[in-house]
Structures are given as C-alpha cells and as structure tokens.
C-alpha cells in the first residue's frame, strides 16, 4: 500500500535543491526539505484530477492526489448537472473504462432524464441533476477508498524538471511548506485557477471560484517552461433561495420514471426524484439589461477574452438575438439538503444592483432572494495543441495536462481527459502502449483528437455533430466499445468484465434467434430495419422472443437499424485508418517542403501531427497541403 516516504529513507539519484533558488538565496531558510516518492502526482482534485488519479491508481501506480482544499474534491463549480447530449455519452464512456463519474451521479442524482428520446438511438443521451454536496462527498470517499491512492491537501508552488538526453523530464512538484513530491509523471488539472480573475460588474477580485483563491506558482512554472498560455472567459448565473421562489408561476419539469442509470454497474436507481422548474425572461428584463450594458465587463472592455458561444451570458443573448422577446430559464435545485437554486440560462457578470433589479421582473422570481451573485471568470489555459494524443506535453516528458486547463468546459469533458491522462501516465511508466481512442471508437477519442489536433478558439464543449461516426457511438453500447479496450490496462475490474460478458452472451443468443425468424415472407431483421418497428412489435409476432432481456434486445434492434449506415462508414473509417498509418516522423522538417503555404506550414509546425490523418484534420490544412506532405513523406 502506498504511504509517503520521508526523503531520508529513500535513496534516489536526483537532487532538487538546485532548482530552488530562493532557498539558496536564504530568503526563507528552511532546515530540511521533506521528500515523498510516488509514481504519479496529480495536481487538482476536480473532475479531471479525481479521474486521473483513480485511473493511475487502478493501474497499480502509487499515486498522490494534491488539492489546495480537501473540502472541494469533485466539486461542481457551476451547474448542478451531469450529462446532456454528447456529454452523457462521454460519462457512459468514462464509466465503461472504470471511471468514477457515472457511479457518483447514480448515487447522488436528484432527477434523471434520457434526452432526445424522440430522436434515433444514437442521439439518446442521459442527463441528471445532482445533489452537489452529496456528489462531492461521494467522489471524495471513492478516492479515499481507492487502493494505491493518497489524497492530500497541499498547495503546489513549482514544477520540478531535469534536463536529460532526450529533453526536459518532469521529476515532481514542490509544495508550500518546503516539501517535495517526487514522481516520474505529473498530471496538472488546475481548472480555472490559473491567474483567475472574477468580474461582477465593475468589481474584480482574484480567484477561480467564488470565495476561493488563484494559483500563482504553477502559472509561473508554466511560463518558465515556455508553455504558450492564453486566456478564456466563462460565467456562472446567480443562485437563489428556493423558499423565495413562487413555483406556482413556473412550469414543472419532472424527472423520467423509471430513472435510467449512467453506470453500467448500477442496476437500478432507487432515489426519490425532484422536479426542476422553467420560467422566462421578458421585454422589461431585456430593457433593463440593455440600459446597463455599459456596465457589463463583456461590453465595457473590461473582459477581452473569448467565452463559449453555446453558453452565452444573458447580456450576450439580449444583444445578439434582440429579436427574441423571451429567454428560457431553468430553476435547478442544488441539492436535497438545501434550498439553493441554480438559475440556468442567466449567466451574467452584470453589477450586483442590476442582478438585484432583474429578478423582480421575472414571473415566479418576483420576491426571490439572491444567495450568490453571478460572475464571469477569466483564467489562463494552455492551448492543447501543445499536447500529444496521450495528453502528455510536447515540451516536458512525463508532464500531462487535463481538464479546463486545456481550454475545455464541462465536468464530463474534464473527467474524460483526466482518465486519458491518468491511464497514459501509468501506461508510460509501466511500459504499456499508449491508450489512444480513435474517433470511430469513442467520443473521448473525438475530444482528445480535436483538442490536440485543432487546438481551441473558444472553450471546447462536446457536441454529437463533432463525431462523424456518431451512429456507432451510442450511449448504450459504450461498454461494448470500450470496456475490453480498458481491460488489458487494468482500468476495469472483474465485475465490469463479467457484466460485459453476460451482456455479450445475451446479445449473441438474441441475434441467433432473430436470424432464424421471419415475418411476411422476409427475414425478421429486414422487418426490424423499418424505422417504425421496435422490439415490442416483434415480440408480439414471435412471443418466444419475450424471454430475452428487453433492454439488451432493444440494443440489438439499434444495431440492426444502423447496420447499413455503419457498414457504409466502415469505408471511410478504413481510409482514415490507412492515413493514420502514415506516420510523420518526430521533428519532420516542414521548412523543407518548398511549396507549402505559409499558413499551412505554421499550423503544421505548431501542432506537429503524428499521422497524416491527424494533419488532415487541422483546421486550415487543405487536401492540397496534405497531398504535398504525402509526396514528401514517401
């Protein structure tokens, strides 16, 4: 079992004192540096950090998870919900690879819905409202129970590196109080806490989350190591006291019965569900906002960084879509044990007095009391084209980045990256091949590939439209797609494998039965391909089919319905595959391609794609550039 070892007990060749100039300068003379030795150190215990640490630990790495505050492990900083279209798919994939998120939300959700039910099966996507505090505690105790993993409260002040023959290598981190965590792999998941600046109207304060501080040491270290750092903005809405809301004036939005779980391990969700509520803004709210636009940091020039287009602030909505006379607001409970309500749809950084004046104009919220004001936060991120597909940085070996630090938004996107970084850090130390999911295998594959290939020009969120092979990336088959891939790494345990095996056997039996049956003189599979025909319909025709597990059988019908499309996509997949086998050597000399366009050369030099396939997906790289590149690679 992993226990920290004081430095004196372990003989290791590397000395760190030389990288601590101020110690030598005698500014803060300390008698002795305490040293702990781990395989993997994860900095930050949010959704990325917890998944990263747990994944590395599952793979047998002695892992330390460092957080500035043990009371905010797995905290949901913004909306109290997990999943949603495409995001729900990601949670299912994280779960299929043994991750935490799915189990955590199943245990602590307060409302579950399968979105897009009226669309085809590939579009179905689970979403749940969470009890924020319960969620956080569940994650914390999961981490505490995990073998090989130590959760510690530390403030990381610096990254330690050493120059080797093959380049810069990370060796650990220095924490406040003059202690060193030595590790051959360090995963940074610092979220919005780098150089974070919060805005509420004209008022500004340093910090990555209301009431919390910002991280300075790591920012300095990243600068010293010459990472490109850019700035994004995001926002959060005010929270109201639910007791002061008149729900009678709002529409009720109930959960779905029975609730559908996220985790492939969860059999059934027993918890009582709570409703959400919907109300709307109106012209007088919009007038008020327009009259105060000059005081909104986004419009006064106080904030210059880019925010996400799909999550605009209310001031943005009013300005950009002035023709709309109302905007929808979702009132989402923050937990079972609190009355605090999250007002989804009214993210704002307008000054307090405008926020105060706004709610009395909204039906149901006339008497609502604000408990926390909305704010915008600006933070540093490292453009992710500085990463390899393993999420290891190109500049420093053994240093991995995951989560919002990479310019993404969303708990789910963060968790997925955490899992990928944790698994790859461990794989590297154990000498296993890297775990790189392909675009046709998983949304996680699309996510990581998009990030490292295209970089980001606004906070990155997953959409199903980003996945060109989405018809095969269903939420219901995430286990069939990924669990087997995770198994050889040690990411998934025996229970999961058994579940998968049972399911696969049942699927085989169902397929075998269907193939022998027919309807109306034609094979039953052909009948099932018709859009309007479902499993219950064929059970009525052939009653012997009712003995099968209806949920699994439903998935078989999805396979059948999409088979033609999937087969057609196989051609594309194979072509992509061939391109991805054309590897571009490390340090390939793009300057040597005389006729390459300047723009293309700059982009290729920045991203340094690993394969031709990846090069082709860099935005701004044309097929023409690719052909040239191909010619030079031969």
């Amino acid at each position, binding site marked *: 079992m992993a226990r920290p070892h004081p430095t004196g007990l372990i003989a290791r060749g590397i000395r760190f004192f030389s990288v601590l100039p101020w110690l030598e300068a005698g500014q803060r003379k300390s008698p002795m540096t305490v040293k702990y030795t781990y395989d993997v150190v994860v900095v930050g215990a949010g959704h990325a950090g917890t998944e990263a640490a747990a994944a590395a630990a599952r793979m047998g790495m002695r892992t330390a998870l460092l957080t500035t505050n043990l009371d905010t492990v797995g905290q949901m900083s913004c909306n109290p919900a997990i999943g949603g279209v495409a995001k729900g798919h990601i949670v299912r994939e994280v779960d299929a690879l043994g991750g935490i998120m799915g189990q955590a939300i199943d245990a602590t959700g307060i409302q579950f819905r399968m979105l897009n039910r009226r*669309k*085809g099966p590939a*579009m179905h*996507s689970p979403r749940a409202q969470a009890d924020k505090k319960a969620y956080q505690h569940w994650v914390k105790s999961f981490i505490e129970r995990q073998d090989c993993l130590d959760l510690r409260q530390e403030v990381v002040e610096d990254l330690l590196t050493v120059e080797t023959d093959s380049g810069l290598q990370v060796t650990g981190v220095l924490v406040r109080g003059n202690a060193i965590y030595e590790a051959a792999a360090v995963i940074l998941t610092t979220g919005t806490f780098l150089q974070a600046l919060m805005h509420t109207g004209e008022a500004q304060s340093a910090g990555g989350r209301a009431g919390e501080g910002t991280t300075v040491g790591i920012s300095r270290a990243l600068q010293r190591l010459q990472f490109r750092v850019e700035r994004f903005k995001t926002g959060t809405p005010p929270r109201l006291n639910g007791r002061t809301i008149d729900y009678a004036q709002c529409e009720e939005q109930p959960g779905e019965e029975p609730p559908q779980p996220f985790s492939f391990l969860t059999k059934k969700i027993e918890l009582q569900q709570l409703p959400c509520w919907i109300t709307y803004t109106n012209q007088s709210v919009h007038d008020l906002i327009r009259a105060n636009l000059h005081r909104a940091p986004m419009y006064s020039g106080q904030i210059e960084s880019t925010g996400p*287009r*799909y999550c605009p602030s209310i001031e943005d909505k009013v300005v950009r879509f002035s023709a709309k006379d109302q905007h*929808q607001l979702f009132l989402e409970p923050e937990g079972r044990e609190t009355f605090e309500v999250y007002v989804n749809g009214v993210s704002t950084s307008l000054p307090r007095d405008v926020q105060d004046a706004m709610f009395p104009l909204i039906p149901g919220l006339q008497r609502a009391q604000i408990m926390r004001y909305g704010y915008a936060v600006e933070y540093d991120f490292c453009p992710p084209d500085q990463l390899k597909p393993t999420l290891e940085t190109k500049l420093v070996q053994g240093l991995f980045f995951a989560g919002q630090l990479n310019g993404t938004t969303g708990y789910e996107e963060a968790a997925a990256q955490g899992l990928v970084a944790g698994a790859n850090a461990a794989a590297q130390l154990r000498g296993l091949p890297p775990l790189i999911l392909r675009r046709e295998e998983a949304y996680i594959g699309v996510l990581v590939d998009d990030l490292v290939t295209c970089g980001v020009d606004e906070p990155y969120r997953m959409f*199903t439209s980003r996945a060109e092979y989405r018809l095969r990336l269903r939420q219901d088959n995430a286990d069939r797609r990924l669990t087997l891939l995770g198994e050889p790494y040690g990411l998934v345990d025996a229970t999961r494998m058994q579940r998968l095996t049972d399911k696969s056997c049942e699927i085989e039996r169902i397929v075998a039965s269907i193939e022998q049956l027919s309807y109306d003189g034609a094979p039953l599979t052909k009948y099932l391909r018709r859009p309007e025909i479902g499993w219950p319909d064929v059970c009525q025709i052939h009653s012997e089919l009712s003995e099968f597990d209806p949920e699994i059988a439903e998935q078989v019908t999805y396979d059948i319905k999409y088979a033609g499309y999937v087969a057609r996509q196989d051609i594309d997949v194979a072509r992509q595959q061939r391109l991805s086998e054309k590897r571009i050597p490390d340090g390939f000399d793009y300057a040597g391609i005389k006729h390459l366009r300047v723009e293309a050369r700059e982009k290729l030099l920045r991203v340094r794609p690993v394969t031709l396939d990846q090069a082709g997906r860099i935005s701004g790289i044309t*097929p023409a550039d690719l052909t040239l590149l191909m010619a030079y690679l031969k």
Partner: protein
Amino acid sequence: MAIGSARGPAARGVVRLSGPLSLLVVAPRWRPLSAAHELNSNRSQVVQGTITIPSLGQVPAQLCTWPNQRSYTRQPTVEIHTIGSPIVLDAIIEELCQAGCRLARPGEFTLRAFLAGRLDLTQAEAVLGVIDAKDAVHLQQSLRQLAGGLSHPLQEIRALLLDLCADLEAGLDFVDEDISFLTIDELKSRIEQAEHVVSSVLDNIKDRSVHTEIPIVAIWGVPNAGKSNLLNALSRSSISIVSPQAGTTRDYVSHRVDWHGSVFELVDTAGIEDVPHSATPESLAQNSTQELLDRAALRLLCVDTSRALTVWERNQLALSASMPDWIVVETKCDIEPQRVHDPHAMRTSSHLGAGLSQLLGTIAERLAEASGSDARSASTYTRCTNALQSALESLQLARWLAEHDGGEELVASEIRTSLAHLSDVVGAVYTNDLLDRVFSRFCIGK
C-alpha cells in the same frame, strides 16, 4: 514529353513520355540488353538496354513502362532513365521531337492526371504549387477554366446543404432549448428544394454538354504573307459569327467560325518582323502575339508563294515538321502557281477561294485530334455530373427517411454524405462550418 529530373549534370536523368503512342515512339530506338528486356506492350516493365540516338550512338538506359492506364496520367507512359548529362538528355529530346513528340507544357502531366480523374482539383492545385509560379500561370488558367463555370452553382448547393445540415444538427444537439429548429414539414420541403437545385444544375450541365472554351486558331506569318485575306476568306466560306467574347482577342481581328460543328476562333496576329527591334511598339505587339500564340490550339503558318522565303520563314518551315499544332499554309497560290515552299503545306488562294474548305477541314480534324479541350472539359463535367448525381441520390434517400419518420440523425447522415460527394469538387466540410452556422443563427444557451 519532358525531362523529369533536375536540370544540370547529375548521376541520373529521366525523360518522361506520356500519351497513347509513347511506347511506339520509343520501341524502334530500343536495343534490349537481353531477350528478357524486350519491350512488352501488355504490362508494366523495368528493362535495361540502350537507346539509339543518331547524334550520340548507343546510350545505356533503363526504361520504366506503363503501357496501360495504370500510370500517373492514366495514359501509356514511358520513362527513360539514363545518364544525367544535359547533352544526352537534350539529344534524346531532340530525337524524340523528330519522331513526333512534343515537349510538355509546365504541369501538363499533372493536368492530364487531373483530367483522368487521378487527382481531384485540390490535389492538382497542390502539384501546381510545385511548379514554379511563372510557368504555372498557364496551368492555373486552364484549371480555373475547368472549374470556373461550375464552381459557383456548386458552392451555392453546398451552402444550401450546410444550412440545412446545421439546422438539423442544432435540433439534435440542443434539445433543451425552447427553439424549434426545424419542423418535419420544413425539413421535407428544404430537402426537396435542395434536390430541385441539384437537378437543375445537372440539367444545365447536360445542356452545356462539353463546351467550355472555344479553341483559338492563330493565323501567323511575316507581314504581307496574306494573313488578313486568309482570315476573311475563311470566314466567308464558313458560318462566321462576330465574337461575343471581345476580351479574348481584343487586340486582334478575329472571327468565330463554325465548320460543320467544329467551332473555333480564327485570329489574325500581328506580322512577325524578320529582325526584331528592341522596345518598339512593334516588339511590344509581338510580345502579345507570342502570348496569343501560346494560347492557340493551332497555328496557321502562312507563307507567301509569290515571293522567296525570308530567313525567319525558312527557320520556321524547318521546325514545322515536328510541331503537331502547326499547319503550314501557302498563300497567294494563284500568282505563281509553280512555286512550292513546302510539299506538305496546304495550298490556298484567298483571291480564288481555292483550298479553303480543305484547310477548314484540316483545322477541324486537327482540333478534334488534339482533343485536349474536348476531352478535358468532358472529363471535368463527367466528374461533376457524377458528384451531383450521387449527391442527388443521397438527398432522395434523406427525403424518404424524413417522410418515413426515419430519424433525424439518419437524415443528417444522408445530407452529410451528399455534402461529401460535392466535396470532391468544392471542398470538404468541417464541423466548425456547421457549428458556426448554428451559433450565428440560434440563441443556444442552457
């Protein structure tokens, strides 16, 4: 035919020939090392032996042959790999020119590959980048001409489909919004609209059939060689239309001629001065004459039989045999009917109207032979037609799915397929294209 290796001395030089007869041209000059190295016109080979060049003797060489369509240009192709000496290579080129080969224009191999469907337009453009810009102008022009007529309507269709796809995608990805992105009726009617536009472009292409650019036939010669009279006489003896495309031949007298369906632009050029002066208005005129001649599909080299040949004319006549796009025309044959400058020349008299129909017939024949323009436009149009036809089929499937409640994700998939077919000719679709459209049109914000 072109030298396929770098200029200047090198260990190895390559001369590449492409065209239906390339193997036949090389075969009589080939002496194989042994029986195993005999040329075989049925399969691709690499063979050793020597090439017989009269001025040099036996030159050791290796031949790589692609007698069928599996070459880069999809035409029979031969590569002669030999000593990389400029003298040797030039001698080989000269000898092959004697045998009827023509030097390739810059980028012509790529152009042929493009026309053969071997490369798509963007790929061809890439290769274009490899050719030095100055020389590439011609190829660029021809590529633009190839694509230009169609790229506008194709772009329009692409934009239409992208919008439709963006609306569909928005409905799939942003389910919690209080926006109805697209009703099923609207979806059906917009697919129908797209189908309509695609089919009308298809019909349009069929109507225009093969024609893109009218070939130019340049009348060429020293001053007073009878060029203008020939132009007028030829125009009179055929259906002549005043050119509506003033721009192409603005500085010249020109007539559009239709000879039994073969349409070409007959252009009178400025007379060639025997001794060019420097920087005079005449020499400027001759620069633009040269430009016109380069663009011409055929040159009619006019020589006056009523008088002796000038030095320039004698030189040109000597060259003419190896120039497949030249036709030597002897003019004013009524004045001194006995004098013949070139036994292979077409003899005419503009005054008597003699030899004109034969000449027109020859022009039409040569143009059809050179067939560059016909074949090239035909193949571009075929590719566009195919792309549009496939796009249309996907749209029909999309509409069927929409009508039968087949799932919007499948409808979207068909529309994306349809866009992918178009992308062969008008550029790929990136997710950001779609997202940009979504975010600029809808207020998404949960």
